[in-house]
């Protein structure tokens, strides 16, 4: 537990010290939203469906970059090896890295939501809390997958290209559920009407956080 806290604190400290992950993620979210605003017809691109889709596209792109970077940042000076040599279990390292990448994704989600409210002329209302909940559930599932698979990007040949190819199809169920629930919430429906979608998101999170926790030791080790 002390080791978990130490890693999380260290990651936070590094980010405060001019780590660039937040900057990169927020500007990426901004870019995605801007591209979508221009890519769609203005008349069409107003509704909650478009806004929900845009938010999730931003979230997936941010996750792809940010969540993996949290693991890859340990590669410098062989720090990942130092973590492996320390008395922590691999699962604790996973939990700590997951916490950090989840934190960054939530940051990106908040930024993207604020931007989307402006760009798509959404009402600022109570639905915002429900929307954040849905996005946070999605971010957790994505970072669970990305943290587990990020090492592949560093270690396998052609890994950086391969990683999105592996993560996005695996993330499809959460993506479907998340977009649907977000759109419902944004069009003014209560979160309770999307109970099934939220259920799928929660099931996805539980499943992949557990899987990552159990399987991480098999991917971080060296030959």
């Amino acid at each position, binding site marked *: 537990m002390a080791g978990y806290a130490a890693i999380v604190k260290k990651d936070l400290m590094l980010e405060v010290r001019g780590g660039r992950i937040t900057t990169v993620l927020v500007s990426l979210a901004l870019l995605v939203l801007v591209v979508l605003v221009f890519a769609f017809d203005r008349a069409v691109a107003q509704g909650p469906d478009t806004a929900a889709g845009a938010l999730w596209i931003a979230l997936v792109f941010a996750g792809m970059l940010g969540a993996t970077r949290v693991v890859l940042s340990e590669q410098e000076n062989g720090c990942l090896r130092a973590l492996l040599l320390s008395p922590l279990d691999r699962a604790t390292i996973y939990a700590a890295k997951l916490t950090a990448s989840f934190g960054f994704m939530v940051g990106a989600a908040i930024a993207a939501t604020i931007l989307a409210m402006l760009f798509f002329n959404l009402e600022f209302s109570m639905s915002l809390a429900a929307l954040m909940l849905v996005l946070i559930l999605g971010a957790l599932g994505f970072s669970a*997958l990305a943290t*587990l*698979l990020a*090492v*592949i990007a560093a*270690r*396998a*040949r*052609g*890994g950086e290209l*391969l990683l999105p*190819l*592996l993560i*996005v*199809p*695996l993330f*499809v*169920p*959460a993506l*479907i*559920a998340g977009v*649907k629930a977000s759109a419902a919430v944004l069009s003014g429906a209560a979160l309770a009407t999307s109970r*099934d*979608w939220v259920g*799928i998101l929660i*099931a*996805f999170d539980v*499943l*992949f956080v557990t*899987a990552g926790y159990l*399987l991480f030791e*098999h*991917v971080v*080790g*060296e*030959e």
Partner: protein
Amino acid sequence: MSKPIQNALGLSTLVAMLVALFMVFEWVPTEAEQGIVQRIFYFHVPCAWVAFASFGLVAVAGIFYLWLGGQIWDDLGHAAVEVGMLFCTLVLITGSLWAKPIWGTWWTWDSRLTTTFVLWLMYGGYLILRATAEDTPQVSKFAAVIGIVAALDVPVVIVSVRLWRTIHPAVLVTRQGGHGLEDPRMVATLLVSIAAFTLLFAWLLMLRFAELRMRTRLGALAREIALIRFRAGAA
């Protein structure tokens, strides 16, 4: 994996396949609503069954590889994912060829098609990892982990995609109406086809697996030669 078993399996596959073909084209009555094109169904469904079975096998092989170790499990997973992708691709193609005359479109985001497509994407990524990355124990572990994670994802994909389609208004006739299998001969034909495809699957898997085992043995021999030369000082 001995050659005689392989050949016997190949032969029985051939026989079963011929019987299945005979039943599909000569014996089974034509379905009333869809006409002759409904006969795609008798090979389409077994392809899907085989694809799902091999993806299940990928996960099992992955679990055994991580648990017990041994290149044999890695080779099994590798063979299974390849054969599974072959049949998964065939499901998509035959599904398309069936959808065009019946639904008037090559592709529709029907729940089963979508699920199959998502699986195809998932295991396609896995196969690319297998094909491009070097053949190291580390990559084998990655592959095992991805195989397990993908199998865990399959039920979630099925549930979410089904929910996704039912909430949308059903634009197209659901497929259930299409094949009620009202004639017992239809059921019999389907069962024989499934049996034939299961044999085919076992045979293909065995062939590919045998090839991968040979590769593993080749690697072991090459390593042994390298070690002997190393010991002798000829680095």
